[in-house]
């Protein structure tokens, strides 16, 4: 059996630590399981597995050379002494724009945005209700002096109360219903695109793109059926529906670390990158070794050279003199595109047995036109 790599062991240890931490929080938050609902134990174990899987994968991801470097750089850029105040001021607007409103998806496509926004808020609302209830972190009690009210206990501490038959009560107790409405609407829009868009059709995969939508729909619809069963059908098939709903939710929790849902945990890195790019723009720029135009921040180019070396790439160039550019990363993308054609021209020169020049096959049109309009050349033409 091959020995486990250091990265794997480290990720596994972090996964175990995170799982133990959540388990301890469940014990503390439910007051030694006093408020823990034993019927929900399946959900709890699925969640603990998800915590391990997500932490393990996140840790493995963070140990990839580019991710490790930009993770560190993102925090350094945010907390840098000369930019901290600017970053603190910019942070709330970016957070709301990117995460609460998904404005970048809105600019990509309205329907894509609607699908994502409904699904995201539906899932967030459902998670905010389900996990604290499953863990016993929140429970409701009727005060001894007023049977018409419920008091909310958070981590065993009493907080506000509300009338059971009030609008607030209705909204709270049907929170998962509202969440499922949002999710189902989003899934419908997303599914429509996946079934009709030829671009999506070409690259989509069942496991990556359809399964998450199917799971979200299954969780939502079986949850709604439970509500329908106890509200209007006198609990018809309630036990069966409860098992089906639990199976859907547990499978979704187990799937969290593996599939598309993992982007929920990766995505916040976007914020760190934005601060890194801000710092880069404000700092020294790299000038192209070929066309002498600035094209990227110095820190970014140097970081990229480091990452490429760590990954085993060797874009080093042997310069003709000390001042010459010694790494291909110092050439701007446009000059890279142009040099492809230059290289092809040189090869054709060689293929025709001509001396290779730096500007293969050059025809200086401007010089020709100038020459053509000059008196000396007109006499030659006649």
């Amino acid at each position, binding site marked *: 059996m091959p020995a486990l790599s250091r990265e794997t062991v480290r990720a596994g240890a972090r996964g175990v630590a995170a799982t133990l931490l959540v388990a301890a929080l469940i014990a503390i938050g439910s007051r030694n399981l006093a408020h823990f609902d034993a019927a929900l134990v399946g959900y709890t174990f699925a969640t603990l597995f998800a915590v391990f899987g997500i932490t393990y994968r996140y840790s493995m991801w963070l140990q990839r050379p580019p991710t490790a470097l930009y993770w560190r750089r993102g925090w350094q850029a945010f907390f840098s002494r000369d930019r901290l105040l600017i970053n603190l001021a910019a942070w709330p607007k970016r957070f709301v724009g990117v995460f609460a409103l998904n404005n970048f998806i809105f*600019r990509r496509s309205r329907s894509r945005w609607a699908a994502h926004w409904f699904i995201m808020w539906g899932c967030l609302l459902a998670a905010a209700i389900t996990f604290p209830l499953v863990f016993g972190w929140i429970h409701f009690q009727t005060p001894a002096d007023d049977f018409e009210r419920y008091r909310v206990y958070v981590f065993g501490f009493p907080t506000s109360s509300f009338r059971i038959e009030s609008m607030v009560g209705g909204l709270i107790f049907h929170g998962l219903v509202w969440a499922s409405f949002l999710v189902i609407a989003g899934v419908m829009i997303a599914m429509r695109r996946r079934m009709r868009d030829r671009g999506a059709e070409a690259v989509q995969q069942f496991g990556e793109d359809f399964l998450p939508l199917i799971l979200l729909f299954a969780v939502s619809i079986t949850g709604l059926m439970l509500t329908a069963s106890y509200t209007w059908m006198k609990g018809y098939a309630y036990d069966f529906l409860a098992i089906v709903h639990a199976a859907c939710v547990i499978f979704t929790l187990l799937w969290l670390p593996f599939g598309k849902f993992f982007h929920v945990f990766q995505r916040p890195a976007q914020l760190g990158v934005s601060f890194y790019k801000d710092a880069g723009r404000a700092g020294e720029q790299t000038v192209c070794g070929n066309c002498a135009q600035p094209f990227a921040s110095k820190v970014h180019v140097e970081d990229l050279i480091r990452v490429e070396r760590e990954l085993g790439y060797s874009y080093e160039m042997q310069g003709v003199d000390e001042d010459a550019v010694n790494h291909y990363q110092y050439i701007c993308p446009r000059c890279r595109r142009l040099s*492809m*054609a230059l*290289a092809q021209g040189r090869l054709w020169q060689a293929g025709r047995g001509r001396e290779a020049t730096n500007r293969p096959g050059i025809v200086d049109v401007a010089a020709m036109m100038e020459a053509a309009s000059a008196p000396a050349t007109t006499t030659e033409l006649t």
Partner: protein
Amino acid sequence: MSVPGHLNFYIDPARCIGCQACVQACTECDTHKGISMIHLETIDRAHSTQTIPVVCMHCDSPTCAEVCPADAIKRTPDGVVQSARKPRCIACNNCVLACPFGVPKMKVEFELMMKCDMCYDRSSVGLKPMCASVCPSQALFFGTREEIEAARPQSAPIDRFQFGNQTITTKVKMMGPRSVAGARPEHLDVTAALDPNPPGRSISLGVLNGSR
């Protein structure tokens, strides 16, 4: 669905006439509707009419994917390097700066990298990518090896490119001379062709002087 193994993409910048048909056709592709992924570069308009259409070369070991901190760029088993996965791309610009061919485009407003995916909706079912379907000079050609050999007997496809010490092999092939000093050219040395005198990037690759 995957790109049939007998079909290849060949590019020949020396044949490009700069008509922009590929740029326009590219916007019709369903995988990146309305946004052209082709860079049509003009070398030096004052001195030459030479232009270069740049599409993704689809590297066997794509640097763009390796340097991606979000693991957003995937290469499908048929060798096509796909555009960044939308849920993952964090718009860090690493791929744009790392690609040795200068291919990926950063769409800042979408916070997303987009690149040529060989019109995967078309090529994966055996159709020509949009650009190759409209290129009048066949600077962009999608077809079989037999077809390109019959059409260009003096040329041979090259899929190895040298960037300093780094050799990159690609799925897309560049047309070059069939023989150089009696031998088949093995690779194209891109960095050796970098002009040490930056302002004078004027070339024409022999299009105007009648050598081709």
